């Protein structure tokens, strides 16, 4: 678990669905070893950006570099060994055990006609331990709570042994307790295992507390990037969401009362 992290650069990225431009010349660099959060109003291009960065969509213009190499030139499988993504919507058969699901995370490392090695087993065990689901390894997915399910899918992504972990709104379908649990887990994965995190969050306060860096998007362009203290300001919040909200500082923390 080397602390060496990959460097992700987005250069002048543009993308349109048909005639609807979603991203217009987006550029930023994700700080290696940090937790970065993409923020912005609905339909500002967050999820599209995440899909482009994970080779699910192809950019119309611009490029995305992973350690200086254009990801368009990387094979899907090689990309999956370096970066993993936890999508917002996840499905799995109800009778699939947690361990079987997490084992799927080894797919990019296993050639189709080879059986799993001891390293694969160790990596799966590690991923389950890191996400606190080792004790439910044998339970079928259909019996899990929302929070446990989310952790199982995060564990699957971890089993890929990524240096870079993408998460698309990892808290959306969870109640507040599991939201906090999931965000703390993400923070811990970053702190203890040096995994660079890039996630999309809706909640400004959660973004401010759990991120080292925030990228604010508006109408397909980057409005601001930097530490939460610098980005989460009256002006940026208003520019992003079109509503005036009071931003308060409370010692180290800043927060917004979203009412």
């Amino acid at each position, binding site marked *: 678990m080397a602390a060496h992290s990959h460097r992700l650069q987005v250069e002048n990225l543009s993308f349109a669905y048909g005639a609807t431009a979603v991203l217009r010349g987006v550029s930023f660099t994700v700080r290696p070893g940090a937790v970065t959060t993409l923020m912005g109003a609905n339909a500002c291009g967050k999820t599209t950006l995440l*899909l482009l960065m*994970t*080779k*699910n969509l192809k950019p119309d213009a611009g490029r995305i570099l992973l350690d200086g190499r254009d990801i368009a030139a990387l*094979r*899907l*499988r*090689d*990309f*999956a*060994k370096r970066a*993993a*993504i936890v*999508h917002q*919507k*996840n*499905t*799995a*058969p*109800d*009778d*699939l*055990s947690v*361990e*079987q699901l997490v084992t*799927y*995370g080894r*797919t*990019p490392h296993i050639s*189709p006609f080879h059986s799993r090695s001891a390293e694969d087993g160790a990596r799966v065990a590690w991923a389950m331990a890191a996400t606190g689901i080792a004790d439910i390894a*044998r*339970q079928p997915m259909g019996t899990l709570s929302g929070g446990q399910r989310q952790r199982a*899918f995060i564990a699957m*992504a971890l089993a*890929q042994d990524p240096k870079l972990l993408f998460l698309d709104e990892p808290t959306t379908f969870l109640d507040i307790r599991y939201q906090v649990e999931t965000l703390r887990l993400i923070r811990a994965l970053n702190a203890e295992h040096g995994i660079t995190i890039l996630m999309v969050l809706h909640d400004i306060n959660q973004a401010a507390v759990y991120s080292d860096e925030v990228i604010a998007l508006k109408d397909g362009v980057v409005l601001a990037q930097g530490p939460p203290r610098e980005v989460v300001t009256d002006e940026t919040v208003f520019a992003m969401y079109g509503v005036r909200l009071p931003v308060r500082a409370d010692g180290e923390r800043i927060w917004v009362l979203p009412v």
Partner: protein
Amino acid sequence: MKAAGKQLLTGMLVCAVLAGLTALLFFASLKIGSISVTWAQLWHGLFTAYDPRVAAIHDLRFPRVIIALLAGGMLSASGLFLQAALKNPLADPGIIGIAGGAAFTAAVVAAFFPMLYFSKPIFAFIGGIMAFLLIYRLAWKGSLDPVRVILVGVAVSAVCAGLSEALFGMSTSGGVSPPVSGLSQRSWSDVRQLALYAAGGLPAAVLLAPACNLLALEDRTVRGLGVNADFLRGLISAVAVLLVSAATAIIGVVGFLALIAPHMARRLVGSDHRILTPCCVLLGAFILLAADTLGRVLAAPAEISAAVLMNVLGGPFFIILLQRGRRVGRS
């Protein structure tokens, strides 16, 4: 690992029991019929001395029984794979018109190019693939909506059936009789033809079982694991279409089997395709042979075809699935 191991073990046990039952049924249906012989007579007639009654069984009943087993297994595996590829528990190659497309091109070959009789399954495969692509294209709206697939499929199925009927009409007036279908009057050359495709398609299905497991996740998740989900879907669909086309070329369209067997198999051994695929093949072989044997017995000396029996039993089963699907969809 123990839970998964236990599931796999239970699955293997179920498969062993199914294989045993199928073997019993195989011998029983060899004996059942208008010509009756004892086991001893059968044994001697086959291996030591010529016996005209056993010779008749060898030429008529053996091929029929073997074809029922092979076609039953192939159709069921085809249904299972289509369900996995289209993420649609209702996908049945008979209902959504793939078998209809295969049957039509096979009929064209039989009517106009009788010299190509022995490559009928290949032409059936072409027809099956065309029907599949048509359904896929027409039902695709960013993703495949399960109900849309069924609706489009029913239309494609009706068009193919109509074309086949029209072809029979034309060919009878032209003095060509419609090609025989169903399980009666099958010969050893049919067995050899079908066995060729079963020998290719069924092992391919077993090899692709882990790929079916992956496709049970969201496509984006599969891509995230470094696997091209669309490529997998194409591969799995191609095997499914090959299996159903070859079987249809020999025995005609049999509906519902490809729907019933996978669902029953899932109930028995769960959703892991590594064990589900062999279980489904065995179950399909058993069900089609049972239907054919029953059809020979129920109204003897007249026969009810296995396809008709499958429709009578399968229709209600399909409705139950639709009802349950609706409830699941709402919850």
